[in-house]
């Protein structure tokens, strides 16, 4: 299982109706302060985000990936939507 698949599998507990993970690691390899971990861009729609402010949504995702950061995941950019607000943006 590569890291993208691993992230995908971890986030299944939030029952996403849409989940897209892009590996941008090649764009950032070796920049200052990067110890070799990957950069990922995540777009996700989940009923678990309903009624939660953005900060809390990001925390939910970070909690599921906590042991992967920072050594395997150096940076994770997120767009997270509750099921009823998806694609209004």
């Amino acid at each position, binding site marked *: 299982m590569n890291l993208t698949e691993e992230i995908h599998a971890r986030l299944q507990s939030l029952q996403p109706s849409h989940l897209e993970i892009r590996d941008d690691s090649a764009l*950032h390899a070796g*920049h*200052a*302060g*990067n110890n070799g971990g990957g950069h990922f861009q995540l777009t996700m729609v989940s009923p678990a985000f309903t009624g939660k402010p*953005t*900060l809390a949504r*990001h*925390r939910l995702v*970070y909690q599921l990936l*906590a042991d992967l*950061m*920072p050594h395997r995941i150096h*940076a*994770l*950019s*997120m*767009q997270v939507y509750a099921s009823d607000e998806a694609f209004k943006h």
Partner: protein
Amino acid sequence: MDTQELIKNQVTANPVVLYMKGSPKFPQCGFSSLAVQILQACGVQNLTAIDVLQNPAIREGIKQYANWPTIPQLYIHGEFVGGADIMRSLYESGELQQMLENPVA
């Protein structure tokens, strides 16, 4: 003074504090660069920028302080606001500008 206490003093003694990689003039990471650009677009004059690459204890300590695993991190009047993604969405909705103008003391 331990690192957690030092961070608490930094974020409460200064109105707008950004923990970042590099300096506002020479950011060392794309997300830190974006964070600085957003604050500049908001017209922030009184930014306190702290370069975590110059201070390993703060670099690790700030992650525990807010229970947030990544840098940059923005604080307004002692309150943790978020990282670069959250700053961007708050800026696009106009909320960040309001928070900077009308800080809750």
